[in-house]
């Protein structure tokens, strides 16, 4: 293992100490560094809380900030935060309008968020829950509830954050977030494994000339493993799956997230995006917004994912709204 560490067991907490030093606009609740919250809660606004395992920066905590999220329970690498930590975040974030729980569809996270919601109810804080399940490769059509949440949750964060910033009530924020979820799809591909610091060796083996289509952001098995193909062919194969799921008509608009998994350079992401643009042109679909870079990583894993949000008149202005967090700046004109 070749990583910049002090001790593997301090990986998460020392990362957090660095983040708090660098970004005074975030802080922590309940004297627990893993209860990560905005330093500037907005009175009367619906709070939005996410959470999940570490090892995916900027996901999850990176999107806590203006017009996006208000708090994040930070777990160990690939581990859920505890219900108690999520409850502490919830109590800090609640400004009287209730709290939306918005996180990825993983068993451990669901149990702890549900428990936190039940405990929040004891404290008279209303909560609603939306779980991201954008990963097309993780289950078949008709079984979408079994799909994992990956990079596409970024669009849900953006839609929910803008809706809450517009002072919409909790039920409305949840409805809009559900809509964004129903219209978001992601496909990923991995070229190499990542190393969990406390384990010290790669989570799986993959040949030097192989790729795995559909691999999850914790190295969960994908749909197929095959010889690495030219960039255009890889994009074509991934987009075939996404196009098969949503009816993108001529003239429709989409938002695109080209996400690097941690070990893939920006140059390659632009080569891949070039092909994606060609495919959208061929269908007459307009890419209204595009973000390209690292949004949901798997530490040093090489690979990328494409997330597409099928916009409509309600979602477009929410996605276009400005946002400002330590890890994500969006200035609209």
């Amino acid at each position: 293992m070749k990583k910049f560490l002090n001790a593997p067991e301090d990986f998460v907490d020392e990362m957090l100490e660095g983040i708090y030093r660098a970004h005074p606009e975030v802080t922590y609740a309940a004297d627990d560094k893993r209860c990560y919250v905005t330093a500037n809660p907005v009175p009367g606004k619906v709070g939005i809380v996410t959470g999940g395992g570490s090892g995916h920066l900027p996901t999850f905590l990176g999107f806590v900030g203006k017009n996006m999220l208000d708090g994040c329970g930070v777990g160990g690498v690939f581990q859920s935060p505890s219900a108690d930590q999520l409850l502490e975040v919830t109590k800090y974030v609640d400004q009287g309008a209730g709290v939306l729980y918005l996180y990825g569809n993983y068993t451990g996270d669901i149990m702890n968020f549900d428990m936190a919601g039940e405990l929040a109810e004891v404290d008279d804080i209303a909560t609603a829950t939306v779980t991201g399940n954008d990963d097309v490769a993780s289950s078949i059509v008709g079984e979408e509830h079994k799909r994992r949440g990956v990079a596409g949750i970024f669009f849900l964060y953006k839609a929910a954050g803008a809706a809450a910033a517009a002072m919409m009530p909790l039920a409305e924020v949840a409805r809009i977030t559900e809509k964004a979820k129903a219209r978001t799809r992601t496909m990923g591909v991995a070229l190499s494994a990542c190393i969990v610091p406390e384990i010290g060796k790669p989570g799986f083996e993959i040949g030097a000339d192989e790729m795995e289509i559909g691999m999850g952001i914790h190295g969960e098995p994908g749909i197929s493993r095959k010889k690495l193909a030219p960039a255009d062919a890889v994009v074509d194969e991934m987009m075939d799956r996404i196009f098969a799921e949503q009816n993108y008509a001529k003239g429709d608009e989409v938002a695109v997230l080209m996400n690097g998994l941690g070990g893939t350079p920006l140059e390659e992401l632009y080569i891949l995006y070039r092909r994606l643009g060609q495919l959208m042109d061929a269908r007459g679909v307009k890419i209204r917004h595009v973000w390209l870079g690292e949004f949901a990583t798997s530490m040093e894993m090489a690979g990328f994912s494409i997330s597409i949000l099928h916009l409509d008149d309600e979602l477009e202005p929410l996605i276009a709204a400005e946002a400002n967090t330590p890890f994500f700046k969006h200035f609209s004109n």
Partner: protein
Amino acid sequence: MKSLEPQVVTGLFPRLASRFEAERDALIALDGKVGDSDLGLTMSKAFVAARDAVAALDDPDLPTQMKVAGAAIAKAAPSTMGTLMATGFLRGSKALAEAEVLDVAGLAAFWRAYADGVAQRGKAVLGDKTVLDVLDPIACAFEAQDQAGADLEDAAQFAKQTAVEALEATRDLVAQHGKAAAFQEKSRGLQDAGGTVACILADELNAFVQENLTSV
């Protein structure tokens, strides 16, 4: 109809804490056969926290006792089993929302909500060799006794006996959840560790009921 007043029921929590402290090593050994050995620690921490939290309340009604106990367990024992027990007490608290005293009907509602909450949160079904395989029979026992118009001491005794038999029956099941699931066939023949926790709850409840009804 016999029943227990809320200020009497608070006495159940010190009893549960003492029992789980006494059973700590036995539960560690049982869980260690197919699990990760933390059950004994988790449950003693959980019920000590519940005891202390309820003791800090001023003349609490039944739903408040159960709610505060559940919240204390969740905080003190953030493991799967701790979370399930916390869920049980919180759901049980809601089922007792209107209850002024604890009677057979209240216990039937409490345990039904407890078992259903655990099933929902743990995503388990009957026969998966989990705590549910003892909790659900306890709920059914109280429901049947309530239907039959049984007295509290008889219902509690019947529920305890049902729990003992249900726990024995878990030996024939094969684990489907958690770390024990990795052992699958190896878990056959072993009494389920989570089920043991549920059996202890029914046993202590019964002992508590007998002690407090006869002393009236």
